[in-house]
């Protein structure tokens, strides 16, 4: 019993059990979940699978090939914990685990990964997932809400707007967006003429929009995803409000705006004033050959069910390779130490985000405003706006 109990926490990293075998990487994703979570997971898993093929073609990691194992956790923390524990108790410790989200799954599995000293990359950040004091071997891949909001400021100023209205949802992220936009914009010298939230179950946003309109803003900054976005666009049209609208990444992730009528609203008057904040990699650029090769590989490997904003796992495999080759080790502590090194991050040559800027005191990416672009809605092909 005692030996069994110790097995999960002391087994060596992959490759050490079987020195000649491939390195194992586990990818958790809610492939069997409902709706948008399944699409996000499909993109995330596809990105990981494509990156394995690319890294293996590039000589693997420390001369070893990588083998990926996908766990369908159905976006359910209980399923994720059970299946992960099963894998670990079998004694075959992976060199890294990649969590495709959501944050509830991260919350559940990170203590297990920390206990077993396994490096992890995480798409669903939690309150402590980027804190090295709590999760020393975990690295979040999604930028913070603050990073996104900082990216809005130069765009608003470039467009010579001064009075800004903010409309956000009632989710935890939406509330944070509303709070941080107000403080960040005020600190940047912009005037927030109105800041309104809406209930995510609400079916009509016209009253909130009319209230914001009464403040006579120059621009509307919008956090909205799914059906609420549809109601916001309806409300703006109904009010006849001719105002520039800048949406965040949630707006960009809603397929309605990338779909032509009659199913969607692409090309209609509802989106003629809309621009959206996305990563540079989410906008197709024929000149970016490396990124285009990565996207081609992903499209050949599997389904890209959402925008490339969920394809961070393509980068995490290259980050793992760069860290391992810098540390000349697969040990989680050495890998973690290497990942906060600027040179290692640059050597990884990541494609979805140009540089993650992990730091010793914060294992979260830091995105500079210039890493974002603001684009009009267009068709989404292989996760990229055209």
């Amino acid at each position, binding site marked *: 019993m005692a030996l069994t109990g110790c097995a999960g926490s002391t087994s060596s990293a992959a490759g050490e059990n079987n020195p000649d075998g491939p390195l194992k990487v586990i990818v958790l994703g809610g492939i069997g979940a409902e709706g948008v979570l399944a699409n996000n997971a499909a993109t995330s898993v596809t990105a990981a699978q494509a990156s394995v093929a690319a890294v293996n073609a590039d000589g693997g990691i420390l001369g070893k090939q990588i083998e990926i194992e996908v766990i369908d956790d159905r976006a359910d923390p209980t399923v994720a914990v059970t299946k992960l524990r099963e894998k670990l108790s079998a004694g075959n410790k992976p060199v890294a685990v990649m969590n495709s989200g959501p944050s509830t799954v991260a919350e559940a599995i990170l203590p297990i990964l920390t206990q077993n000293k396994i490096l992890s990359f995480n798409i669903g950040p939690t309150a402590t997932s980027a804190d090295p004091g709590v999760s020393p071997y975990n690295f979040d891949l999604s930028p913070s809400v603050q990073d996104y909001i900082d990216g809005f400021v130069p765009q608003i100023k470039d467009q010579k707007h001064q009075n800004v209205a903010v409309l956000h949802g009632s989710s935890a992220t939406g509330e944070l967006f509303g709070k941080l936009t107000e403080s960040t914009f005020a600190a940047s010298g912009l005037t927030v003429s109105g800041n309104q939230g809406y209930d995510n179950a609400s079916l*009509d946003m016209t009253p909130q929009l009319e209230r914001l309109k009464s403040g006579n803003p120059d621009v509307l900054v919008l956090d909205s995803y799914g059906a609420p976005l549809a109601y916001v666009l309806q409300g703006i049209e109904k009010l*006849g409000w001719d105002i520039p609208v800048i949406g965040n990444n949630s707006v960009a992730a809603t397929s309605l705006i990338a779909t032509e009528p*009659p199913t969607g609203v692409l090309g209609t008057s509802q989106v003629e004033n809309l621009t959206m904040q996305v990563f540079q990699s989410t906008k197709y650029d024929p000149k970016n050959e490396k990124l285009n090769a990565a996207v081609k590989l992903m499209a050949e490997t599997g389904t890209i069910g959402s925008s490339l904003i969920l394809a961070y796992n393509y980068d995490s495999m290259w980050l793992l390779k760069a860290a391992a080759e810098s540390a000349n080790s697969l040990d989680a502590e050495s890998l973690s130490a290497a990942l906060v090194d600027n040179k290692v991050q640059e050597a990884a040559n990541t494609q979805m985000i140009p540089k993650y800027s992990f730091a010793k005191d914060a294992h979260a990416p830091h995105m500079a405003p210039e890493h974002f672009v603001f684009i009009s809605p267009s068709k989404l092909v292989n996760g990229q706006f055209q």
Partner: protein
Amino acid sequence: MTIIWSGMAIGAVYALVAIGYNIVFLSQKTFNFAQASLMMLGAFITYLGIVVLGLHWWLVGIGAAIIIGAIAALEERIAIRPVKDMHNLLVTTLGASIILQGVAQLIWGGEPYRVPFFAGDGVVEVLGGNVYPVEIALVLVVILLVVALTQFAKHSLVGIALMGMSENREAAQLRGVDVRRFAFLAFAFTGVLAGAMGLFVGPKTYAVATLGASLALKGFVVLAIGGFGSLSGTLAGGLIVGLAEALASRYIGADFANLSVFIILVVILMAKPTGLFTRRKERTV
């Protein structure tokens, strides 16, 4: 006036759900928690018919009515009829609602789908306010529906039988009313209604799998305000809830929209516990 139109249109959608609740309540003395989910499916069938298959709107309306009516009939057979204890019906219909929402999520995911309105999707100005044609249609349809159903209940043999059932099921049975059959037909009719109304609800709310959850609670609030069993009460309840939500969001703040609705509900129930349009019945003890 734009806000008033918005409030009335949303209130009309809530009232449609409440009408479905009421018909089942009158015939079975219970609630069909899946009513809002049936309406959500009605919106999806309308989307499928008009957008994907390119059928005429009237054909889609008839098809959706038949399909959702059949689903409601199936629900009655599986989730209502086999249940002996009336209290358990709340659980079984809630289960049916969860199944319907899960099926919609599996088929269509969580994204909204636009449903075109057959009379046009352009904004028009009416009485000084901007409004979509479907919003005017929703208000008119609900009023016509309530008037038609009320007249049907008062003047048709089936309607009188249903009202008799709602007052005293045993007495109606003794007078020769086939209560199980009538209850089944009433249940299936709420499905027919939910399907046909997809033509009006879909263009307003989009076809989206979360629609049932958004409508279910507000439908109950409308029912409680108007009075359980009162069709005309659903009109008043829908108007009150829709306008309270819209005006509170506009003039106090969106955080107070639901709060205002529930304060109004509490005040009305304190003043008139049976709801605005239902009379208290005296009982000899």
